[in-house]
Every structure is written in structure tokens, then in C-alpha cells.
């Protein structure tokens, strides 16, 4: 795990791991969270950079819904819970 608490290997991810990380983020995972997390993982596996807009247009959740599921920084928190790297710029 990185210093900021992101998994370094998606193979270490499980629903149990996700639930524990979500608790650290003060999020209680529901049936609505899992499809979003799976979408993020699939995009990551295809090496497609993620944006809030992309998630909002995924057909799985809209942007407001994404915020409602992962309040206070949805892409950052959802990425951490999904076991994929933190969204970052180049510096």
C-alpha cells in the first residue's frame, strides 16, 4: 500500500479489503457502490485514464450520484476503495 493508503497491486483487492478501506473513508458500502467500483477497475485494467466526467457518462451513475455515494472527493475515494491508483497530474 502507498503512503496515502492506495493499493499497489489490484490483485490484493477483495470485497472485504474494499469494505475496510471504505470504513476508513467513513463510507458504508451498499449494492449501489459495487457496480461503480467494478467500472473503475475495468477502466483501469484497460489503461484508460479516469475522470469524473467519464464516470458520469458511464451509464452506471451520474456525477451527482457519484458524489452522493463517495462524498468529499468521489474519484479519489472511489479509486482508493476500488484498489486502483490515486488520480494524479504529472507533478
Amino acid at each position: 500500500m502507498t503512503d496515502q493508503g492506495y493499493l499497489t497491486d489490484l490483485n490484493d483487492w477483495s470485497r472485504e479489503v474494499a469494505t475496510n478501506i471504505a470504513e476508513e473513508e467513513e463510507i458504508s458500502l451498499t449494492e449501489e457502490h459495487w457496480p461503480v467500483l467494478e467500472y473503475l477497475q475495468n477502466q483501469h485494467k484497460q489503461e484508460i485514464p479516469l475522470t469524473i466526467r467519464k464516470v458520469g457518462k458511464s451509464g452506471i451513475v451520474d456525477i451527482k450520484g457519484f458524489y452522493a455515494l463517495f462524498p468529499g472527493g468521489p474519484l479519489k475515494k472511489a479509486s482508493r476503495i476500488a484498489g486502483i491508483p490515486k488520480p494524479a497530474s504529472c507533478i
Partner: protein
Amino acid sequence: MSNHLAKSLPNDWGLTIIDQRKIHHYQPGYLFIPFGTYTEKEIVKPIAKFLPERANYIQKTIINVDKDKDIVNLEGGQAVPYDLLVIATGTDIAPDETPGMAGPHWHKSIFDFYTLDGAVTLHRALEDWEGGHLVVHITEMPIKCPVAPLEFTFLAESYFHERGMSDKVKITFVTPMDGAFTKPVASDQLGHLLKEKGIEVVPNFNVMEIDGDAKKLIDYEGKEVEYDLLVTVPTNKGADYVERSGFGDELNFVPTHKGTLQSKVKDNIFCIGDATNIPASKAGSVAHFEGEILLENIARYIRGEELKDEFDGHANCFVETGHGKALLIDFNYTQQPVSGTFPFPGIGPLTLLKESRMNHLGKLAFKWVYWNMLITGRHIPFVPSKMSEAGKNLETVLN
């Protein structure tokens, strides 16, 4: 790329360049125009001046690419057939994507510096500005030259200091990322810069709309940031014809293999620069470094050979920090920016991830290098396409 291809394509191949514009812009120069360091005249030249003799130049707007028929359709009904297509149509700002941005306040109290018109208009506005709250804002990622908003912020602080206006100006940097610096080493080594310069950072702010009358940004969670003068980097999108061609992603970027630069649209379509969706920085240096592997892979494609899967995401960018200084960063897909010396290990003369006057002079000198070397298809001396680890302090290793 055209100059490279003109020298290397087999003799029985033709070369056609389609560009809707007549004038080429030195885009890194946009950053300096608002502060009067460069004028408009210094950063524009006619495209025709740089075209290889071998190329047939068509100055028209592209309607779409018919990938099934291998044809580029142009305005006026002209159709250009191709055997191999290189897409290099970059990215542009799309202020219409954010409600309230591209309205009556655009280029009045809401400015951009990612277009020549925006940079020139902003220069006039800054000259007349008497002070207040300047907000520098990133709408969403990815954007062209991701360090430019930070550079603009630092240069603005320096500009107002030189004009004796520091006590009349408050500067805030608003970003959808979790900080002004997002990589661990850069964040650790450069985080102090913003505090020292009195710049406030508002992180994790994803703008939903702008209330131009009330002069405030509003995000999806209801957070608000008020401004007197807003300098925003709007959503960046690929060219509209990519959408009309039916093969772009949601931002009109072309799905592209990150190592070979062959598109995932069709085998005979390749892509370079900001037009791709590869997870590299949308920086001019990236396009330059991509050129070498793209040239090799085009030759291999023509010969029916396997493509080289070798582009490493190499980027090399100066980062202006104001007061006549700059940083330099050199990184790739897996190696984050770290400290060290460049291009000669232990010698420099440029310093990685550390402010210096020499780096600033290097950035200014780059304009000459661009017009006289890069655009004519010559390589930058001592800077290879693949990132070198020599001279880098790699104790903190990978991302």
C-alpha cells in the same frame, strides 16, 4: 512529423497534410503573453514556411474520417483517400461544457490563456486591473500542459509583486485534484512554494457551474469560491471531427495503444500528441518524443513488420515559478518527477524539481529551439526519446 515523414517515406508514397489553419502557434508562448513577456507576433508563423516540399498541403476543415472507406471528407465535398492516416489534431478548450462559463462574462471577468485570443485579452485585463481576488482554476482533467495553470499562478504572483500590487491581490488556486502537487516527491519538495508565495489552494473542487453575475464558482457538493477575476482552464476536448467520425472517447480523444501509437480504431490509423487518449501528459515534449517511435512504426507498418511497443510516456517540462526562476521535470509512465541534474548526470546545467535561474533561461531559449529545430524535424541534442534514469535521485522510485 511531416518533416520526418518527408525524409523517410518510400519514394512511391505520397504525403498530404490537412490543416484547417494557415498560421502555426508556438503554444508554450501563450503562458507568457498575459504578463507581457511575449507579444502575439513572436509566437505565430505561417504554416507554409515549415512544410516539406514533398507534401501536398490542403488548408480545409475536416468533416469526418470514414475509417471503413479510408477517406478523409473535407468541407466543400472534397474526399481525400489514404493508405495510412496520422491523426495529430490536438486538443482545444471547450468552455461551453461548463454552464455559465462561455456566456456574457467570457473574456470580461472570466478568462483563459489556452488560446491566443484568450491570452491577449487577459494581458489587456491584467494591465488595467486594480487588484482583488484572482482565482486560477482547472475545470477537469485531462488538460494540455497540466503544469501550465500552476505556472500561471506563480507568474501572476511574481507579476503583481513587480508592479507593487502584492498587498492588493489575493491569489487562489482551485483544482479538482487533491492538491496543487499530486505526486509524492513533488508534493514533498515543492509544497512549500505555494505557502511562501501566499497562494491559497482549494483542492477537490469539481465545478458544476459558474454564476458570472455573482462572480462565483459552484461545485457539485455546493461549495463556492468567489472571485473578482477568474482565469480558468476549461474542459479540454479533442477535435469535433473525431466525434463526427464516431471513434473518439467522451472527450473526443482517439483510443490509442500507449506503446506503439497505433490507434485502436483501425490498424492503418496512427495517432500522436494531444489527440490520443494515452495515459501520458498532454505536453509538447511528449508529442516530440512520440515522433521517433511513430516514425519507426509507420515504416514497420508499411513493410508489414511487427510494431515496436516502446513509447515510455516520456515528458520533459520546464515549470515557471516566477521571479526569474523555473523547475524542470523529466518523467514517464512509471517514473514520477524526482530531483537531480539534467541532461548531464551530476553536472546539469539544469536542475530537476528544484528552482533555478538556469531553468528559466532554458524555458525562454526553448522558443528558438522550437522554431528552428523541433518543427523542422531535428532532435534536441542530449535529450533522447526514452527517459534516462541517469542523474536522477531515484531513492523514492516508482509512482
